[in-house]
């Protein structure tokens, strides 16, 4: 019994670390622009399909397939900001509806271009299984978790140590004050949105080392990311890791002990409870 619990917790821990990376892009966009990216799950799914196409056409390994996708997503983000979001700044309802429109376009595009069948890739150069006692975890998941930690640290350092990152934080704290200090807020927002989308490509590429991409994966990753971001305290990068680990372990325990189909319910329940009882998040700024 204790063995099963331990297995479940360790598996959830690894999953949580991976989820942290998936939620990172959403957190950057929400934290800097105060904008709910309703198309986040769709962008994760799109990036997974991108990885699939890049790998199947060029024969690159999944683990480096994000390199061509990253600048494309960054550019798309900047274009979406200047083309669409800039026009509706200050009207949150229209922005959400706009991102919902983008989400619908991506969903249909993926179905048209990728078909309805799940798409999987042959194993990457990381393969094999790590055995800890009776527990078996594939190396690709461990590698993804490590990459996630590294990426989170890099983004955290970017936001707190570089001039552009600090400008982003300043713009998120007080838009007008940042503007008066000579920060080009529009440019910063465009950069933040581009960065938020670009950050989606790395988890997508690593997810493809051990998962399939299918046209309904947007649902899972979208709601999962929102839940993590809310738990972390909306817009806090530093709270993402503990929040994601809580989510991962809760999901894993429910899958092991209740029912595999109900894996999303503990996430929803956690989200609603946190929003209700601690709206600033478990690890939010006081």
């Amino acid at each position: 019994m204790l063995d099963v619990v331990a297995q479940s917790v360790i598996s959830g821990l690894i999953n949580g670390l991976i989820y942290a990376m998936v939620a990172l892009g959403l957190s950057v966009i929400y934290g800097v622009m105060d904008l709910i990216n309703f198309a986040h799950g769709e962008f994760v799914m799109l990036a997974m399909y991108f990885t699939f196409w890049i790998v199947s056409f060029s024969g690159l390994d999944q683990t480096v397939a994000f390199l061509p996708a990253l600048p494309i997503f960054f550019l798309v983000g900047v274009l979406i900001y200047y083309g669409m979001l800039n026009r509706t700044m200050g009207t949150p309802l229209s922005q959400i509806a706009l991102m919902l429109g983008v989400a619908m376009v991506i969903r249909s595009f993926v179905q048209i271009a990728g078909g309805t069948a799940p798409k999987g890739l042959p194993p990457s150069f990381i393969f094999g299984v790590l055995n800890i006692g009776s527990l078996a975890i594939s190396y690709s998941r461990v590698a993804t978790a490590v990459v996630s930690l590294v990426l989170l640290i890099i983004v955290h350092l970017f936001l707190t140590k570089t001039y552009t990152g600090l400008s982003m934080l300043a713009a998120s704290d007080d838009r007008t004050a940042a503007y008066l200090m000579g920060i080009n807020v529009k440019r910063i927002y465009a950069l933040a949105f581009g960065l938020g989308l670009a950050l989606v490509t790395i988890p997508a590429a690593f997810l493809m080392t051990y998962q399939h991409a299918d046209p309904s994966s947007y649902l899972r990753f979208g709601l999962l990311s929102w839940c993590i971001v809310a738990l972390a305290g909306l817009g806090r990068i530093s709270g993402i890791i503990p929040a994601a680990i809580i989510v991962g372990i809760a999901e894993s325990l429910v899958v092991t002990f209740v029912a595999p189909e109900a894996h999303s319910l503990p996430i929803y329940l956690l989200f609603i409870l946190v929003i209700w009882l601690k709206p600033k998040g478990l690890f939010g700024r006081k």
Partner: protein
Amino acid sequence: MAAIDFLLDMLATVGVYLMLTLSLNLDSGYCGIPNFGKVLAMIAGAFVVAFFPGRILATMLGMSGDFVTDNASMIFQINSFLASNFLISTALFIATIIVAIGFGMIVGYVSTRPAVKIGSGPLAITLLVMGEGLRVIGTNYAPLAGGSIGISAPDVFAWAGGDRFLVVSVVVFVFSVAIFFFVNRLTNAPLGRMLRAVRDNEIAAESLGIDIVGVKLKTMMVSSAIAAVAGALYAFYSGAVISTAYTRASWTFIPWAMMLLGGVANNVGVVTGVFTFVFLRKLIVMYKAELTPYLPFDVLWLELILYGVMVILILMYRPEGLIPEKRTPTLKMSTLKKMQKT
């Protein structure tokens, strides 16, 4: 005959979407609540139809067996009983609608309460998550609505025999017209101005003594009750409840697209939007066969892309929609003076 069936089908579709979009206009258009979980109240109404009337009749008729696993045979017996009992059918229909209204109100309150005090973003996600959660529960917990296979609902219009389709379509449409007048009356009263005040500037509205949290909760209760009625009527219309069919795309995104197309916070605009949208959709479905040879994929997917692009273009270039929002008509000065004299 086919043409009449086609028109009738459109009548019921327009009716259901009209109710949903009007209720969406009440909470999102007038009050500014980011209701991206419209499907939640709709599912609630449909689940009421799936759960209550069939079980009540089964107990009444003294049937044995499990309502979910023996659904087909039990519904067959129930329907043959209902076909000859107009009064019981109608009473059951009305009772179910009333339960759906009550359930819709509860769902509206419960889904809004957690995040009502925080910004629009968290509230939007909370509502969406609630809708998604209820659908997941419905899909995986069979006793509620038959799980992923779905469940048949008793046919309370079986007494109409061959004209069943006609009767149910007309009933759905009549309900939607009644709801139009109800919402229109509500929003053209001082209440409508209060809702707009809350939407446009919460701080200003609060300084004038408006209880913002209370207003938002009550608005969501009323609008969710309307959406639950729409869900219940749709379930009665289609005769079955299948949880997996209640997707965000069809029951949250399309009402939003209709509202944005017609005109936010304008009930006549919403009606225009719904009719235009349903008409466009039927056109796409009609010309689907002609397009199919040229496209290597199902036209239905192109349809959703078109809706998405349409929403983006409307929000960028004509955010007020086809018919822009108008000021609420107040009483004329002369009428006020007359009232003062009497």
